[in-house]
Structures are given as C-alpha cells and as structure tokens.
C-alpha cells in the first residue's frame, strides 16, 4: 500500500490501483454520511477530483494521486456510508483506476513514511 500527504491510500495489483482514504482521514472527518463516487470511464490526472466525502457539516474533496481511467466504483458505499468510518482502508475503497503511468506510484510514501508524516502533523 502507498500513501499520499492528502491522506489517500493506493493499493496496486497489476496495472489497476484501488484508492481510498486513510484511518486518520476518516477519524478527522467524523461521521461520513455520503460519498460521491466518480463515474466508470472517467479519465483522471493527478489532482483531479476523484470523490467527495460528505460528513454532516462538511464536504471534503478527495484528489486523485495518479493518472488513469476509472474502471470500477464502490457502489456499495452509497447505502452504507458508515463503512468509511468502520473500514476505511479496506472495505471502503472508493474506486479502481487503470494506471496510465505506473511510474507515478514510486513517488508516494509507504506505510512507515506515512506514519512518520502523521507524527509530524
């Protein structure tokens, strides 16, 4: 698993990356009430909006860390947004993206680096 400074995680299998938000992010957001997921087929560049996570009082953008095309979205989240709070780093993945540029992954943090980053906040 790789991590970004914006508290997203990415798990790569072959040329498909699964993206979600970290435990830390989920905790900071409070109760998640809705997740706006991208459409399958959407083409992303790093920094594009991948999803929007809504809590009662705020809507937080999740930015794509990578380039690629959305090949799946976790529709199960629409009826069960609490999954994001319960299992942010596994069951509550947001989307699967077919990587256009696998090299982008190497610039991201591993778990140890991310934990260290969290300590510095």
């Amino acid at each position: 698993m790789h991590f970004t400074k914006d508290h997203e995680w990415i798990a790569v299998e072959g040329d498909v990356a699964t993206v979600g938000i970290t435990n830390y992010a989920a905790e900071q957001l409070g109760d998640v009430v809705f997740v706006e997921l991208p459409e399958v087929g959407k083409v992303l560049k790093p920094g594009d909006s991948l999803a929007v996570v809504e809590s009662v009082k705020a809507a937080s953008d999740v930015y794509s860390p990578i380039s690629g095309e959305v090949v799946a979205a976790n529709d199960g989240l629409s009826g069960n947004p609490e999954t994001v709070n319960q299992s942010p780093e596994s069951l509550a993945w947001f989307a699967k993206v077919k990587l256009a540029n696998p090299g982008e992954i190497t610039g991201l943090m591993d778990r140890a680096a991310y934990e260290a980053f969290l300590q510095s906040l």
Partner: protein
Amino acid sequence: MRYLPLSPDDRSAMLSVIGAPDIDALFVDVPAEARLPGPVDLPHVQGELEVERKLAGLARRNRTAGEGPFFCGAGAYRHQVPATVDHLIQRSEFLTSYTPYQPEIAQGTLQVLFEFQTQVARLTGMEVANASLYDGSTATAEAVMMAARITRRTRAVLSPGLHPHYAATVRTMAEAAGLTVEALPLAVDAEAEVLGALDGATACVVVQTPNLFGTATDVTKIGEAARAAGALMIVVTTEAVSFGLLKSPGAMGADIVAAEGQSIGNGLNYGGPYVGLFAVREKHLRQAPGRLCGETVDAEGRRGFVLTLSTREQHIRRDKATSNICTNSGLCALAFSIHMSLLGETGLRRLAQLNHARARQLKAALEAVPGVQVLTPRFFNEIAVRVPGNAAELVETLAGNGILAGVPVSRLAPDAGMDYVLLPAATETTCDSDISFLSRALTKVLAP
C-alpha cells in the same frame, strides 16, 4: 426612541467599561472622508400616531380586492384565509424565531417544516418536497438549473402556456448560467408543443397546468416523450388549490414540480411574500436546492427533527452548492401548513370544487355576453376570454365602474399579439352578484 433601550447613563457606563471616550472612538476605522457628520437628509423620528397616519393614507390610495367584484388571477389568487392562520403565525415563537440551526430549541419550526414537506409531497403526488423556496417563479428557475445538473445538458424548452413572468425569471437565471432557453409563443392549449422543440441538448421541458390561460392538461404523455429523449419534465402550477381537484403532477409523471403556494394560507400582498413549493423524485434528491428537514432521534431516543443534507447548500458547499439560496419562505410556509391542516383533504376537495363551480358560472355568464368568446377548453378556476377590441382598455373602463375584471394578457406579454385576451379567475370568494355585475357591465360597455 421607543425601540432603543439604552439610556444616556447606560451609554456612558458602557463606554467606561470599554475604555473608549465616546462613540466616535468605536468608529475610528471608518475613513475620515466617509464619516457622515450628522443624520442624512430624511425625516426624523416619528411616533406610532404619525407613522400610522402616513401609511394608512398610502393604503387608502389603493383599491382593495374586497371592495368590489374582483376577477384577477394570472398567478396570484384571492382566497379566504381562516382567521386562525394569521393569528397563529403572529405568535412570538414563530414570528421572531430564526432558521432552526440549533434544533434542540427549534423543534416547533422543524416539526412544522416536516409536516409542510409531507403535505407538499402528498399534494403534488411526488416522493420528496423541500421546506420551500421564495416563490413559484424562482422555484421554476431552480428546477431548470437542477434538470441541467442532472442531465448535464444545456437547453430548456418552455411551453406556450407558461406564465410570462415565470418564463422571464427562468431566462434570467438560466441564461446567466450559460444555458439556452427556448420559450414557445403563447397559446391557449398547446403544452405538448414542447415535444416538437426537443433535441439532444434539451435538459428539460417546462409545462404548466392549469396554465396561464387556465387550461388544465394531462401532461403524462409529454413526460414520457421527454424522458425518452433524455430530458426531464418540470410541471408548474400557480394555483395550489387545484391540487384538490385535478390529477397531481406526480401522477402525471412529473420529474420536478415547481409551484406557487400563495393560494393556501397567504394573501395577495401585491405580489409578495409568497411561497415556492418544490418537489422531486427521491433519486434526484442530492441535486435539489433549498432546505430539507429530516426526522431523527435525540440522545434519549426521543423523535426529533433537524435540517439535513446541508452539504448541498451554500453555507457548506459554497461555490459548489446546488443553489445560493439561504432563506426559505418560513412564515409563509407555516401559514400554508396551518391552512392545510385546517382544511384537511376533505376541506381542500370541497374548496377546489367550489372554485371550479364558480368558474363554471363565470364561464356561462361570459359566454352569454354578445361578442365575448371563452377560449379555455378545460379549466380549474380561471379562463381566457376573447373580447372585441383591446382587453387592457376594457379592464381600465371596468375599473372605472368599480370592477377589477381580470388580467389582460397584454399586461404580461405585450408582444404576443393577444391584446384581445382577458384572463378572469373565480374563487370561493366570488359571489353571484360579482358575476352578474361583471356580465352586465361588460354587456353595456361592449354594446355598439
């Protein structure tokens, strides 16, 4: 000054606590060039006696609807609002409370909104209604914007029966946002013409029933055809009492309903404040504008109500909000809800039947006037009639005889080529003598 509690002693004591020598010290950040040395050039303080005298004088210079035979409609209707309604909305806790952002001490407002939303959903036959918008015309514009968001298309087609003020409001908002609006030329009974103007860029068709000319239409097939082409059907109603007699917009397949609620609980008030009713399909809820009140429980498990799904709104989503709207039409929605509670379904149906009966009497009376032709084939409580000559001039003449005979179409659409069309409406407040006065006066004025 009777509304200002501070005494000169209070002010000095407070300035001491603050540590300022005088009030001007608190305005120190105002640029010197912009500081007004004294009061602006307007009259000084006046007591209730003088203010009442002045405003009562202005009020007397207006002819009220109740003074004589009255037939104006065209989007605002005169109904009998029970005395209880106005009495209840003046309770301090309703009149002087704020938006219910602290729900624990606003359950009164919130429960009323929940009841209101339920009433509006049931009246319109739709799955979900919001807590009201400003009025029917802005609700229509919001509906068009919402349809554009949902379909990701950029064009709206407005029917030949849509109230011209509503069309103008839609055009103003939608064109500002980069949409194109095609408003079809006015026609008495042609809502389905919108289908002829459908194309691949059309986000919505907007139909009105009963329409400007009073014509009631079953728009079910229009909706089906619109959706087959990827567009939504917005159904507009300007006379809410019609929900008590006519097939609901929801039963006719409306995707969004934008209606004016003024007829229930709210007087004419020269055009405002009114109350916009807005109802949608559940699946489109997140794209809907305006406040929503939802049911929940408190920490002791007791049922309560809160504003919800606020992430659509401006105070959270800011530039990504579904609308910029901040207020609803709170007190007017309360008045609507109280009147609806008093009426109940039974009362509303009876009221609607009465309105329709009066309009049938009106139609019969006008048909009997030589030279007058009723144009509206199917109506609720308003009709369009063709008169010889200019309808606006006729209205002025009849006004001189103490009769407010209705709205000439040329008042709303001076370039529609309908200078000969008059829109009279009848409600439960119209009596036999009103109708006979009108027909006698018309006959006399139109006699060669």
